[in-house]
């Protein structure tokens, strides 16, 4: 029986949306308040969905301890209370939440193998959220 398991995490980080290829005026026009040179921050909520057959011996798709440990080590310890612009992933990419979703998806896809990664969903604020399933269509 295939089931889907989702775990929700939170981290707080700052960022500035700024593209070096644009002029100051264009950056201001594109990013508005998010272009403030001193940056600003959010409490990000990250939902990670994995899928797989439910193991009859454990009743689990994937052991929660494995996914928690991985996310803590590879994502929360690096991203929480950090300035996203200073992280290597954003040296050449603007740390919008769209890009952040892809970055976090790729970290999981590359190194987390205890379950099949379905998607990553990120809430930047209570009013906006972003989902990425590696380019696949989302399932309701």
């Amino acid at each position, binding site marked *: 029986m*295939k*089931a*889907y398991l989702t*775990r*929700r995490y939170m981290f707080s980080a700052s960022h500035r949306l700024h593209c070096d290829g644009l002029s100051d005026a264009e950056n201001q026009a594109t990013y508005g308040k998010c272009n403030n040179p001193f940056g600003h921050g959010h409490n990000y909520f990250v939902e990670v969905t994995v899928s797989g057959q439910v193991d009859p*011996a*454990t*009743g689990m798709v994937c*052991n929660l301890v494995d996914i928690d440990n991985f996310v803590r080590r590879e994502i929360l310890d690096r991203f929480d209370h950090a300035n996203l612009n200073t992280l290597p992933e954003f040296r050449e990419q603007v740390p919008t939440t769209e890009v952040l979703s892809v970055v976090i998806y790729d970290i999981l896809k590359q190194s987390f193998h205890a379950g099949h990664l379905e998607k990553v969903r990120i809430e930047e604020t209570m009013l906006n959220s972003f989902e990425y399933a590696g380019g696949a269509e989302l399932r309701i």
Partner: protein
Amino acid sequence: MIYLTRKVEFSASHHYHNPELSASDNQRIFGKCNNPNGHGHNYTLEVTVKGSVDRQTGFVVDLKQLKEIMNREVVDALDHRYLNKEVPEFANQIPTTENIAIAVWKRLQDKLEVAKLHRVRIYETPDLWADFYGEE
């Protein structure tokens, strides 16, 4: 096609233990959830059904009926129960969130008359949930 979701809450206790494994393996795999005296959660169940909108009523499904079915088939059987000891599905199966979602699906799938069951989602806590879409 319209998708409609109805939510209900129930509270239950459980523990995780596989009698075919040693005590130390049970402890290693299930950790605190292996406490033989159990622990509990406030579960939230979301049932999503799909169907076309009836021209006359404007409904995909009569919500009152859906609510009654969810209460009768799921809440009455699971609410304020020790899942391992009082719910037949979990006599020989570990009551993880995944298995609860599958058990709820099986309890509901033949009971819906008009709409088709699309997804069962069980929140064990606001930070952890399992989805089941039927056998795939």
